[in-house]
């Protein structure tokens, strides 16, 4: 039996309240003070609480309204004893569902506010976790919404966010198919921001540990050799402290006025980007491979749109339109994607239904055939940022060469591109930040039609257009020739196009060559 507190407790009634409470507390098994009807408590009332606690140290207070909570919080009582807030009750009946993630569903409750209702009725710890990681993400520069209140929704809990005038990317894709390219562009821009964010050690779970758990689970459901290979592949993925969203699909990206916001942060983790690509593949393709209705029900657009979105997003993320490279990375993502889906389905007792068994058999078949041909789950990102010093030239050359080889670039073109890359990188190293040092970014993009490569160099150094320099006279005899200007001249001659611009405080130089 809880002991009810009501009205006001102040110096007028403190003595009689104390007498009453002590008597009830003496007879109770556990002292739980229900503050649902408590409106105000003064310092005289607080002293009453202290004396009860002295008698019954396990005492706790529940259903505390926000005014009383503030008093208890300010006076340090919330640290001394267990104090549970009263949660505002919110109904989501008839509310529009605007997002759905692994752990909950998001509803719009009025024009300016949304509530995320957690699936798990014991969600208070999850809510706390999500608030903390959302705060962390915000501090690290990720645009997101942070909940300002926890409410009771039916038997479960929810957290409330302000989200004005927002529309999810899924809704935009469903209603305005012509915006697909724009959605892909913004979606990848946000993804790259997430993946370039370094997270301080220990702040977020390591996705590799999670994936090792999936792979171990699969040992009982795959032929022995395939199971072992899967586990070894996951083990070989290098540790990575960059952020992953963990459930990055278009319902979790919101357009609020002109700003793109990331929501549903409870799956935030750190790890290699292949884990993210795996979960993206599942959202847009994997879960719907057999039943194309899945994505329609979940995202509101059809299977073809989902698949097209996935392929364009992958191409934009990897900076390549080379079909072989796309298939290669997609294959790696599918290995982890199928592993995750099979485990999830089996744990949800899918083996007990015919559809479930069919789906698991299909995914397992795909997984086994991928395991036969895949020897690593990592892939080469298409951007390299490093200090612009001549000592790093070899690293830049190796990075570019790896991409060129993957695109079957002929050796002669490879050398010519190498010469151009050397000239540009050495130029940046020598002049961009002189006499200080700074970073340069090298990006390699391969296109299929026509087969060509674009290599972009970005630096934040002094604005300088190397193309403005006058070409040397190459018809002079040796003794009259000057050695200056030859590098840029060669670059122009050996490439099909060289372009320079200064934008957003950066020198941007792009080399293009048809292969």
């Amino acid at each position, binding site marked *: 039996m809880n002991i009810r507190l009501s009205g006001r407790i102040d110096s007028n009634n403190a003595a009689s309240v104390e007498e009453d409470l002590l008597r009830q507390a003496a007879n109770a098994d556990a002292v739980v003070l229900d503050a649902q009807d408590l409106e105000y408590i003064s310092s005289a009332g607080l002293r009453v609480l202290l004396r009860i606690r002295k008698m019954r140290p396990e005492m706790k207070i529940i259903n505390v309204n926000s005014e009383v909570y503030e008093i208890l919080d300010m006076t340090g009582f919330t640290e001394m004893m267990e104090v549970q807030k009263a949660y505002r009750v919110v109904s989501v009946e008839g509310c529009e569902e605007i997002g759905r993630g692994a752990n909950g569903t998001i509803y719009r409750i009025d024009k300016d506010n949304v509530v995320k209702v957690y699936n798990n009725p014991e969600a208070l710890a999850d809510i706390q976790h999500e608030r903390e990681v959302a705060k962390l993400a915000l501090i690290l520069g990720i645009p997101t919404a942070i909940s300002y209140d926890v409410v009771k929704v039916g038997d479960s809990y929810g957290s409330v966010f302000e989200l004005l005038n927002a529309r999810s990317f899924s809704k935009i894709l469903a209603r305005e198919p012509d915006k697909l390219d724009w959605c892909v562009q913004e979606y990848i821009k946000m993804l790259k921001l997430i993946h370039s964010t370094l997270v301080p050690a220990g702040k977020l779970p390591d996705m590799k540990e999670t994936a090792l758990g999936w792979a171990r689970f699969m040992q009982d459901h795959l032929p022995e050799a395939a199971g072992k290979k899967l586990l070894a592949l996951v083990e070989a993925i290098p540790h990575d402290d960059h952020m992953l969203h963990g459930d990055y699909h278009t319902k979790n990206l919101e357009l609020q006025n002109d700003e793109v916001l990331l929501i549903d942060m409870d799956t935030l983790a750190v790890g290699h980007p292949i884990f993210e690509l795996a979960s993206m593949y599942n959202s847009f393709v994997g879960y719907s491979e057999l039943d194309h209705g899945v994505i329609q029900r979940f995202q509101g657009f059809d299977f073809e749109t989902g698949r097209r979105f996935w392929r364009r997003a992958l191409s934009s993320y990897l900076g390549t339109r080379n079909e072989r490279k796309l298939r290669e990375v997609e294959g790696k993502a599918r290995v982890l994607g199928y592993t995750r889906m099979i485990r999830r389905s089996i744990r949800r007792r899918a083996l007990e239904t015919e559809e479930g068994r069919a789906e698991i058999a299909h995914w397992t078949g795909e997984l086994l055939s991928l395991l036969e041909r895949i020897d690593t789950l990592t892939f080469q990102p298409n951007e390299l940022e490093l200090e612009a010093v001549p000592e790093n030239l070899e690293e830049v050359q190796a990075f570019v060469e790896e991409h060129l080889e993957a695109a079957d670039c002929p050796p002669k073109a490879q050398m010519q591109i190498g*010469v151009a890359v050397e000239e540009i990188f050495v130029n940046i190293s020598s002049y961009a930040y002189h006499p200080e040092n700074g970073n340069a970014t090298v990006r390699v993009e391969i296109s299929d039609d026509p087969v060509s490569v674009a290599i972009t160099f970005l630096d934040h150094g002094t604005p300088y257009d190397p193309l403005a320099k006058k070409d040397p006279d190459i018809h002079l005899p040796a003794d009259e020739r000057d050695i200056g200007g*030859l590098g840029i001249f060669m670059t122009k001659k050996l490439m099909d196009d060289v372009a320079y611009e200064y934008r957003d405080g950066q020198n941007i130089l792009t080399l293009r060559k048809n292969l």
Partner: protein
Amino acid sequence: MLNIEKRTNGSELVVALEGRLDTITAPDLEKELQESLDDVKLLTLDFEKLEYISSAGLRVLLSAQKVMNRQGAMKVTHVSSAIREIFDVTGFSDILTIA
């Protein structure tokens, strides 16, 4: 990486290069040549195993050519078609003796 192998035959010096002649390795070749060109009448650069040359490499060739113009002759042998194209676009085909 650049391997530099030198063979002297009277007043002829043969320098065989293997690997890459670029910003990183060009100073090595420059130093080798500076130390070895006294009394050389014929300098032969053997490019059979040279895979790559950039403008930093061309600069060394140009200064060697200038030295040899004063004291004898220089030739470049076994030039691959990829390097030949670099010589062509930079006008080096006209300066160098490519055998």
